[in-house]
């Protein structure tokens, strides 16, 4: 498979996966470590009334999960697809539009969740 085709497939996989894994932290209430800047410590537990930051761990989680999925797809394509396989125009279109929709959905969900949570909606 051509390098550009492979990059396209893996890029779509990674972009779609990172957004969905990012949102999955909220969907499945996944407990991740939080940094407490006034205490200079990382803790799994939430301490009410003490400023904390879950953003760092949330993105590391999403990046690592998306990287794992991307590597899995890369291995499938590398070992299962014929060497002279080409990405068909219809497949490229479907993949591009589906991924864009998944990314927009993730961005939209973040807006909905945060604006609802903080009383904007």
């Amino acid at each position, binding site marked *: 498979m051509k*390098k*550009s085709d492979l*990059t*396209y497939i893996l*890029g*779509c996989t*990674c*972009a779609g996966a*990172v*957004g969905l894994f*990012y949102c999955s932290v909220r969907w499945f209430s996944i407990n991740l470590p939080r*940094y407490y*800047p*006034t205490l*200079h410590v990382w803790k799994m537990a939430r301490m009410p009334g003490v*400023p*904390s*930051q879950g*953003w*760092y761990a*949330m*993105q590391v989680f*999403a*990046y690592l999960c*998306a990287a794992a999925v991307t590597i899995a797809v890369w291995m499938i394509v590398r070992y299962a697809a014929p060497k002279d396989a080409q*990405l068909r*125009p219809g497949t*490229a*279109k479907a*993949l*591009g*539009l589906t*991924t*864009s929709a998944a*990314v*927009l959905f*993730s*961005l939209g969900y*973040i*807006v909905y969740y*945060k*604006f609802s*949570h*903080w*009383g*904007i909606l």
Partner: protein
Amino acid sequence: MEKPVILEGLYSAILMAHLLITFVLVGAMTHNLLIVVKYVRGKFGRKKLEWLYVRVAFWSYLLVYISGALIYPAFRVHIRAEAFDPLGWPTGLFEVKEHWGALGMALFVVYYLLRRNFDPEQEPDKLWFYVPLCVIINLIVWYKVIAGCYLSNLKGSW
């Protein structure tokens, strides 16, 4: 004695760098979009310039992202907790900015690698993802700029 929050002494300097690099980012990314939109109409005359904008925007996004992550603890304690959280809505605006920013970093890596490995003129099928991704990244960048400037006007230092 209470230990100071990490990098709070350098907050203003890093924030200023964050802002100045953002100017480069938003300029490069917006110009990139103007060229990418022409790809849809089959005009590929400014491919080299467009690739330059991608590289400039990618590296400036990375620097903006790192500088933002560095000042976040001081911002969280001295601005967000003290001024924004009691009101609610400014924190809502900020949190969308931070989460979109994190997703934007991953999307930017994809965007950069995609463009590095394909020629828009030779492989127009790949524009089905490249063009929407460019629009989405611009949306993220512009939201971050507008929300960031607005929130800094509300309370930019302590």
